[in-house]
């Protein structure tokens, strides 16, 4: 077993890539040691700059991770916990993970992930459900996933020397500019259905442009078929009575409206709450009650879209678009989203993703600079 001090970024990248193979959705698809190294290079300027001094412009620099990171994760999906731990382990920090109290799926995923790491790395992670007081003070950085109250709670406890990275409530949506693109309904259904909308990348509302390729109502019918098919091969996880009742309540309300208003329509699973598609012409962004319930609406004129998103703007995360092109993306720069991706890829950001618009590794590290050293030294430090 390697000494912790002799473990390089490459060693950690290889171990993490191997461990994450069991969690294909945690960090996006196709995660290899090489693209983890590339991620470090893109964020910090050199792939091995965590290991020692490396050239950085006219000087040498070394990135220093926090000695200890406290991760506070939410119970909605295991992915946030695995992403946060991946970041912490990759940086070489010691990691303290505060697990949610009633989320066995998160605890199980974390345990499986740690079991897949070599002991030299899994030993760098401690977990607890109850947050020990000493943990907070020992952390050089605090990463929090949770509600606005949770974020505010931890922000209020920070000392001046502690870094703080917060991931609060986030909502995502989709815009279909051309509904005639093949396979789009299945792709959109996958975006909605994966993780049962518990994650911040799950679309709540899908706007569909009305054009020759089709319209929102027809697309709503197509996505309903696709959500039914998705549910047949990937059933939704069980939900509690309160969550199911929320879906039924919303369904009943919209069924009533649909019976009285031709601008509303409803598709739903029979004798279960497995999936629900609500078509509504009202352009206001609609927030789903989660667990595979999505709103489909005609795309209003783009210049009016910011107004329809106004109430949720501070919380916007991703917009999935089809077709996914730079020209379409440019149209959406003022909406307040921090990620634009192709429909079907909502749930699979790459490690290069700026979550909530922030760099991850770059935000976490401090720097030591070494100036006035001749180029020979640079060569001698090269890996």
């Amino acid at each position, binding site marked *: 077993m390697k000494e912790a001090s002799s473990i390089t970024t490459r060693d950690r990248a290889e171990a993490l890539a191997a461990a994450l193979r069991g969690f294909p959705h945690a960090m996006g698809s196709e995660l290899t040691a090489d693209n983890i190294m590339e991620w470090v290079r893109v964020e910090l300027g050199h792939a091995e700059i965590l290991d020692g001094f490396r050239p950085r412009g006219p000087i040498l620099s070394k990135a220093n991770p926090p000695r200890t990171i406290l991760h506070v994760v939410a119970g909605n999906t295991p992915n946030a916990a695995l992403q946060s731990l991946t970041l912490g382990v990759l940086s070489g920090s010691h990691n303290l993970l505060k697990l949610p109290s009633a989320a066995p799926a998160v605890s199980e995923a974390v345990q499986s992930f740690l079991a897949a790491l070599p002991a030299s790395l899994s030993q760098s992670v401690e977990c607890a459900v109850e947050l020990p007081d000493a943990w907070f003070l020992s952390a050089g950085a605090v990463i929090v996933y949770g509600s606005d109250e949770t974020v505010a709670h931890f922000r209020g406890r920070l000392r001046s020397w502690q870094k703080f990275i917060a991931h609060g*409530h986030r909502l995502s949506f989709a815009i279909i500019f051309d509904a005639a693109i093949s396979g789009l309904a299945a792709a959109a259904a996958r975006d909605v259905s994966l993780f049962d909308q518990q994650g911040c990348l*799950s679309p709540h509302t899908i706007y569909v442009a009305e054009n020759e390729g089709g319209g929102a109502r027809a697309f709503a019918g197509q996505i309903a078929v696709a959500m039914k098919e998705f549910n047949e091969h990937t059933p939704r996880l069980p939900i509690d*009575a309160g969550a*199911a*009742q929320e879906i039924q309540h919303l369904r009943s309300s919209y069924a009533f409206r649909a019976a*009285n208003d031709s601008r509303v329509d409803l598709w739903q699973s029979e004798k279960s709450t497995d999936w629900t598609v609500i078509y509504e012409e009202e352009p206001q962004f609609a927030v789903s009650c989660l667990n595979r319930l999505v709103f489909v609406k005609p795309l209003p004129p783009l210049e009016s879209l910011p107004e329809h998103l106004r*109430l949720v703007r501070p919380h916007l995360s991703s917009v999935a678009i089809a077709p996914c092109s730079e020209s379409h993306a440019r149209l959406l720069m003022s909406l307040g989203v921090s990620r634009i991706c192709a429909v079907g890829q909502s749930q699979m950001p790459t490690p290069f993703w700026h979550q909530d618009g922030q760099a991850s590794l770059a935000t976490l590290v401090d720097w030591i600079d070494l100036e006035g050293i001749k180029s020979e030294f640079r060569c001698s430090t090269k890996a």
Partner: protein
Amino acid sequence: MPRRPTSPTDAFDAERSALAKWIVAAMRAADLGDTEFNELALAVFRHQLRWNGAYARYVQSLGGEHVDHWTQIPAVSTDVFKWESLPLVCGSPEAARFRFRTSGTTGEARGTHYFHSLDVYDASIEFAWKKLGLPHLPLYSVTLAPADWPESSLGHMVGVLLRMLPEGGGCFIEKDGRLRADALRASLQVLSPDQPVLVLGTALAFLNWFEQMDADSDSSLTLPSGSVVMETGGYKGSGRVLEKPELYRLFERHLGVSADRIINEYSMTELSSQFYTEGTGRPHRGPSWARARVVNPETRSEVEIGERGYVEVVDLANVDSVLAIQTRDLAIRSERGGFELIGRDPGALPRGCSRAADELMRNAQ
């Protein structure tokens, strides 16, 4: 010889009036048996299919016009009362002389329950009070006066109770929402120990009162022996919720009333009848003309006794709107039509990454 109806309005008025008389007579008589309840429920359902166009279209869309048992009557969710463009009323909404509105929180649409007459509504309060053996005591109401609260169903109920119960007491919240704590304490302190009273209010109003008592040390009261407290739940918009045992300990500490002398009233603006329970851990029960079913949220069929689901109510007194109401409240089904509430409005509970959606909408206002 009665005048023959000559217009749709006359026909509606005549049918509504006859139905209301039938319902009130049934309330006055002995408890409704299953057969009589079913007969009346189907009569009210047919009346509503005929005169409540929005509901009739909903029922038709479900293929549910052919109903032969009250449990098959399609229920509407309480949210439907919020859509102003679809007033949920038999006949014309303009002709409906009375309306109650839900309180609503910031940024939330308010629901409206229309009534052509409050004859059945008032009868439901009065006869349920008598049939369920609720206390016949002077009312000290920790609420606004009914005249200051014209669109509140609770305010109206307080008005009915003030007329029905022995004189004394009154309402102790000012129009501006300020609690007249000194006047309330003074009124209660002058009572002799053998003059029991009924003190009624929302849970939130009681909490505010108790906090004032705590701030003004040693101002707790001991109500006369035999007094009863009735709390109606309700923390809406306050962001505060207390578990029932904790709330009831506060009653004991501040008013000297033990849990078995505390009644919880369960109702809502969208209903016209009330359900009651005493103490903790006991099921709510209503009058024989309002029947609750606890329904599986996945299948929408009634759960077995001891299982949890959400509450649907068929309330014959909802004669002017829709008699079958789907609530947001979770409960455990008890024997003989009772239910034990396990949480009001569970949708308000946060879950998921985007969980406090309502709250963030509110914050963004």
